[in-house]
């Protein structure tokens, strides 16, 4: 009877060891199975806005590939930064591993961004920065580099008597400063041809009006560079209306359908486009890495591409210009 008891104990021991090993392997498995939770807060969710839809689609693609549980909280209208602040607080309440933010304002939302850090949530910034470097990683376009790229392209349109005008957007905005700096660098020794720098305040109409005034005051200007979409398209509208398309060359940043039509019709000569899909993808990829506790690069630059009428429809660019 005693032997019986001992035998049972031995067998139970062996079994429990067996199950322990199995449980260990299983628990290990469950650990890796746990998906990182990431909340993406873009500037806007608007199906007609190709840039942001493309960025979100890139984020979703990465979420699928890296098995990230992705939630998107976005204002319906771009530049609604109060709404975006609310979403940041809402995101903190949901306790994700990472918040991926594309801040609408440079300084107004720093406080909220700090709260994210305080809550022990990792912060990743996409597209734009804030005035303090508290993010885990920043993914965006290198605006100086893009400016250089465009400035270099502009050299092709520089003729003997060429005079250049810059239509920027917001005087103190980091992107405006960086892009202008880049363009000047790209132009190199031709920088001196720049006659004036105007600010559209990110408004089509203001850009349009400014351009009309500019052309009346400086009819000799034959190369205009727009530093963002509003400036570029506003310039193109004015030049097209003034039937100066053949005379004045326009280059600019970013694209929409209107911009592409001007590009097709030859009003705009070259556009430099960003790669929002890639930004969204990298943003979530880095978020997944950060959530796993890995060190991520502090800055990841997404490339830009120069588009002219000749390469709109090559396969590399179609998807950039027409994401859907």
């Amino acid at each position, binding site marked *: 009877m005693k*032997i*019986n008891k*001992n*035998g049972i104990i*031995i*067998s139970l021991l*062996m*079994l429990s060891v*067996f*199950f322990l*090993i*199995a449980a260990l*392997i*299983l628990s290990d*498995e469950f650990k890796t199975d746990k998906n990182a939770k990431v909340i993406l807060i873009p500037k806007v969710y608007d199906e007609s806005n190709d840039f942001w839809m*493309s960025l979100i689609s*890139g984020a979703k*693609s990465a979420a*699928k*590939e890296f*098995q990230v549980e992705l939630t998107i909280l976005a204002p319906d209208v771009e530049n609604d930064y109060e709404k975006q602040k609310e979403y940041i607080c809402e995101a903190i309440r949901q306790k994700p591993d990472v918040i991926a933010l594309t801040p609408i304002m440079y300084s107004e939302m720093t406080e909220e961004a700090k709260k994210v850090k305080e809550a022990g949530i990792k912060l990743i910034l996409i597209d734009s920065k804030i005035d303090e470097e508290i993010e885990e990683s920043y993914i965006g376009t290198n605006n100086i580099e893009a400016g250089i790229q465009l400035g270099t392209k502009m050299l092709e349109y520089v003729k003997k008597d060429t005079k250049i005008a810059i239509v920027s957007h917001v005087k103190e905005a980091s992107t405006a400063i960086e892009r202008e700096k880049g363009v000047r660098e790209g132009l190199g020794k031709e920088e001196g041809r720049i006659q004036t720098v105007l600010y559209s305040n990110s408004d089509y109409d203001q850009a349009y009006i400014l351009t009309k005034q500019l052309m009346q005051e400086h009819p000799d200007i034959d190369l205009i560079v727009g530093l963002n979409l509003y400036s570029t398209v506003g310039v193109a509208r004015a030049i097209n209306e003034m039937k100066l398309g053949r005379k004045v060359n326009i280059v600019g940043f970013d694209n929409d*359908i209107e911009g*592409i*039509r001007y590009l*097709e*019709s*030859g009003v705009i000569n070259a556009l430099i486009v960003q*790669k929002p*899909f*890639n930004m969204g*993808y990298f943003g979530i990829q880095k978020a997944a890495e950060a959530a796993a506790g890995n060190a991520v690069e502090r800055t990841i630059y997404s*490339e830009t*591409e120069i588009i002219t*009428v000749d390469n709109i*429809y090559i*396969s*590399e660019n*179609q*998807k*950039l*210009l*027409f*994401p*859907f």
Partner: protein
Amino acid sequence: MKKKIHFKSIRTKMILYFSSLVLLTITIFMFFSINYTKDNLMENSAENSRQLIEQVNLNIENYIDYMENISQVIISSSNVKNYLFHSGNGGLDSKLEEYFQVVLKARKDIYNIALYGDNGRYFINDGKAKRNPYARLEKKEWYQEAKAVGSDIVISSSHVQNMVDGDYKWVVTFSRGVVNPQTMKVEGLLMIDLNYDVINDLCGAISLGKKGYVYILDQKGEIVYHPQQQLILSGVKKEPLEEIINSEKSTSYIDENGEEKIYTPFQSVKTGWTIVGVVYTSELVKNEKTVQYMYIGLGSVLTALAILLAFLMSNGITRPLKQLKAAMKEVQEGKFEPVYAAVKGDNEIASLNRSFNRMTEHIDELMKKNTTEQAEKRKSEMKALQSQINPHFLYNTLDSIIWMIETGDQEEAILMTSALAGFFRQAIGKSDVFVTIWEELEYTKNYLIIQQMRYKDKIDFNIMVNQDIMECMIIKLVLQPLVENALYHGLKYKEEKGTIRITGYQQRGNIVIKVMDDGIGMDQETLKSIFHKKSRVGGRYNGVGMVNIQERMVLYYGEGFGLFVESEVGIGTTVTVTLPYRLSEEINEDK
């Protein structure tokens, strides 16, 4: 200590052996079957991918079939030809419009239907759509190809269609040359744009695990559909493009993140496209892990079963063994008769048990025999002792002493008394069965001295025993009774003085002692009857009878030892005692 013994028990051993055997078997089994299942899983996944992809292909080919039919109908229509190649055709616009609208309304997946003539005439959708003046269709690859091919259908890759003013949509264009019936040459082009969403949805809906996906390449290796087209086109991600078109089998590649993926291509004959299903190996491995857990579970259950079985089997073996052990213990403690280990059956242990039972019975028998023998021995000894304290001998001797004292023969009296004392000291004092030959001889000598003094001129004696056997053991009361017999049966009836001689020596490992007298002797008949218990000579007459001595010798020494009597009438009698050569210690051990 207990635990150690326990670990050596058959049950523990069996459990250990059984479990290790099961575990080993399962490990080997697991190893082979997991390898097998891995291949199997790869194959299954490839097969699964292939089936899904074939479905995608089937759907795409359905569209193509439909496009082919429509385009065939359109290009053969005389209205179309007339519209394109004859100027001044008033009512044809509305006819074409009606025609195209029917198709466009029936099929939401068709985005544009357009006719272009080399002569510049065109008709798009409802006829009212404006042509994009900057479309530059002639620069598009698919347009050039369609022109080159003629009236066969040409399927473009996915692209943005910009031929309608202000309209930019992702489509796949089916184009076909339209033949001018007058010149019999291809002078126009029909284009049908399939909404790209169709392919997007078709491919997006395919589920190849959580992470897997489908992509499509055209004949040139350009991407028709890929969920991460932007990443690939900007070089962030790499995907096997040309390699896949040329391969027919599933192949695995490792991507830039170090993830292994299995690519299963499928070539569509109709479109020339290659549809590729991509599955992440890690997801398959996850399934494989499930299989491993199944094996581990199975292993646990089987081990448990093995342990149970080992229990039952070892019980079957150890229970009878334990019974046997218990029985043996009883035997060890001295119980013989009631101990019978009852093991039924025919196996080895049962037969062992039967042998054990037989052995016990045998031992029991021997024990009984031994007990009887012991009793007999005691009886003989008692008899010997009783006979030794024969009162007549004492009376006679004491009479002789009294007579000696009366006659003043003091010295003789002292000698006799001391001989008598010595005699009795030995006869009564020592209770041992065995004595040394020396002691036995002393005893005999005392006796002889007493008798010699009583029958002065009648007896003479002579003891010549080798010194080397003096320390050997002999049963008490062997020699003295023989001497007594010699006196009373041999010398007593002789007229002259008689002599008793005792010799002793070693012979072939035994001891031989001879008691010889030169008395009257015996005839053969008397000699024969000596060992009959009831004979007068052998029986109890005075002292210990020959029969008693012989019985005792056989009891203690076994057959082959004992007395041998030779006698001749008128010459004398010789009794030869043969006993084993044993020193004192050996005797003690025997006890």
